[in-house]
């Protein structure tokens, strides 16, 4: 390849790669450096492993890692699992399918904080849900559902917010599968479930991986849903990071931040790899 051609390629990639390397790369570098005691905002600037040792030694850190991983994984899997049947249902246009599709995607337009407040209002002790259940005679007294310890509220919010995104990606992929291919599978004896696991899922795996990775990263690093609707006895990694930052301990906050980035990357890769492994195994 000639030098001129190399230059053309570099120039073409620059607007995208330049932004990633320049801006995101700088932030990542600063976070990593701060976690090792460098770039101190209080003036101290010395390489040390002290912050890593201190933060990783705390029980709250291990708990927040487990909790964030749980929220990220469950949200990603359930969002995709719910989006798949809807994507298959909406694969072929029918009367009203456009409206249904638009309604299903509406949560994407609602900001997370607004959604969280709405949700709290619905499930609050004196909220609409409790009132409705009592009015219907199903519950004798109001139940406490807000900030539940198993983070069910956070998961509902994550799925509500992320499922439309998964649906968007999966609908495109599922619509790309020709009718003839699905009919051929049916003709060869594959029922609805076999057609899904042996044809639809393997042929839409790239969209599924993309949806899972993006949802996982977003849900794992979630702050707003957790602060408003999350359990009070656990902290997510983002919460822990803000906790350190609020105390002026930027180096410890950076340790949590770097761990979050690393785990998000690893987790996303693991989920994508696992999905491919499972689907490739099932398609045979």
């Amino acid at each position: 390849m000639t030098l001129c051609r190399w230059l053309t390629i570099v120039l073409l990639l620059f607007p995208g790669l330049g932004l990633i390397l320049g801006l995101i790369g700088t932030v990542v570098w600063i976070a990593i450096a701060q976690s090792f005691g460098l770039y101190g905002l209080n003036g101290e600037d010395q390489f040390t492993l002290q912050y890593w040792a201190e933060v990783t030694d705390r029980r709250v850190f291990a708990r927040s890692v487990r909790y964030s991983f749980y929220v990220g994984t469950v949200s990603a899997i359930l969002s995709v699992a719910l989006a798949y049947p809807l994507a298959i249902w909406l694969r072929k246009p029918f009367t009203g399918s456009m409206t249904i599709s638009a309604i299903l995607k509406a949560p994407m337009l609602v900001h997370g904080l607004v959604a969280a407040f709405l949700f709290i209002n619905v499930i609050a002790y004196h909220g609409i849900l409790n009132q409705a259940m009592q009015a219907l005679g199903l519950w004798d007294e109001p139940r406490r559902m807000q900030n539940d310890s198993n983070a069910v509220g956070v998961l509902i919010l994550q799925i509500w917010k992320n499922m439309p995104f998964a649906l968007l990606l999966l609908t495109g992929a599922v619509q790309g599968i020709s009718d003839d291919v699905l009919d051929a599978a049916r003709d060869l004896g594959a029922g609805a479930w076999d057609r899904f696991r042996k044809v639809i899922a393997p042929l839409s795996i790239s969209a599924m991986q993309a949806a899972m990775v993006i949802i996982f990263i977003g849900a794992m690093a979630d702050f707003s849903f957790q602060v408003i609707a999350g359990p009070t006895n656990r902290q997510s990694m983002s919460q822990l990071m803000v906790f350190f930052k609020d105390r002026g301990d930027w180096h410890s906050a950076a340790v949590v931040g770097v761990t979050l980035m690393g785990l998000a990357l690893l987790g996303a890769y693991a989920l994508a790899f696992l999905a491919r492994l499972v689907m490739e195994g099932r398609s045979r």
Partner: protein
Amino acid sequence: MTAIRIQGLTKMFDGFTALSDIDLDVAPGEFVTLLGPSGCGKTTLLKVISGFLEPTKGKIFIEGSDVTAIPPERRDTALCFQSYALFPHLTVRQNLEFGLRQKKISRPHRDERVNDVSQKLDLAAQMDKLPNQLSGGQQQRVSLGRALVMRPKVILFDEPLSNLDAKLRDQVRIEIRRIQRDYGLTAIYVTHDQSEALAMSDRVVLLNGGRIEQVDTPETLYHRPRTRFAADFIGNSNVFTGQVLGEDSPGRWKIETPAGIFTCAFNGTPQSKEVALCWRPEHAVIGETGIEARVLNRAFQGHFTDLACAAGNGEFRVQALETTARDGDVIRVHVPPDRIRLLEDRP
């Protein structure tokens, strides 16, 4: 016992009748082609037989069992798609094995069937390739193989050659027929290509507007079309409306048409005085006797010459193996009486 019996089958879509009162019996090992123009209902009929469409009325029997309500995945038929419909994420071997795995065929039997079919279809060297690494002809063979390994009671083809080039089409056409005979399969083949239908079939079902126009062997369909549509659709035909003048000699009827008077061999009496008749352009003989006609256009076609002629108030075509007639020449055209066919439909 018949392999397939279709009884009084009707299929409607939102008030539109795609198939109307179809009755058809197919014998075991028979190769039957559904032929007709676009929109005549041939693919709809194939989809009803394969189970992808439910008939509005009527029944379908396969080897005596009523399969009308049985879904395609549980019906003992195998369909070869026009688009091949191979699974793009699976290798050739996995494509061939797909149906056998669904039917939980044991591995040794699976391997035996797949190897047998792959050798017959010359696919042994392609087994580990993905469909997108194969040529059109190879993909078609995989599609055919995928159906054959199932050893179905009935194999169905939905215009399987339409995506192939002319040379490959001839080759695959012969292969399909050979394999169908080798395996003794009952086959239903859909095409709009009359030459394909005539070359491959034991019998041809000619469909028009959702109805069966004629069911016959290719030879009968060509030489004895029963209706104006059949005469027009299969090969080239000169169709005229005429008045019966009377019986010239026993079994020979004189009919006056706008192009002149023709003598037609017909046992019995024509149903009405006004009739429709047809003859093939290649059956006309240019010579000293017959109707006087002027050549309007001469078109050399290689193994014959096509002459567009005018006689009286009518026009017709003549195909001659050898002729010196040029545009504007006056020639005499004779059509042997036994080559003229009286059509059943009213003019």
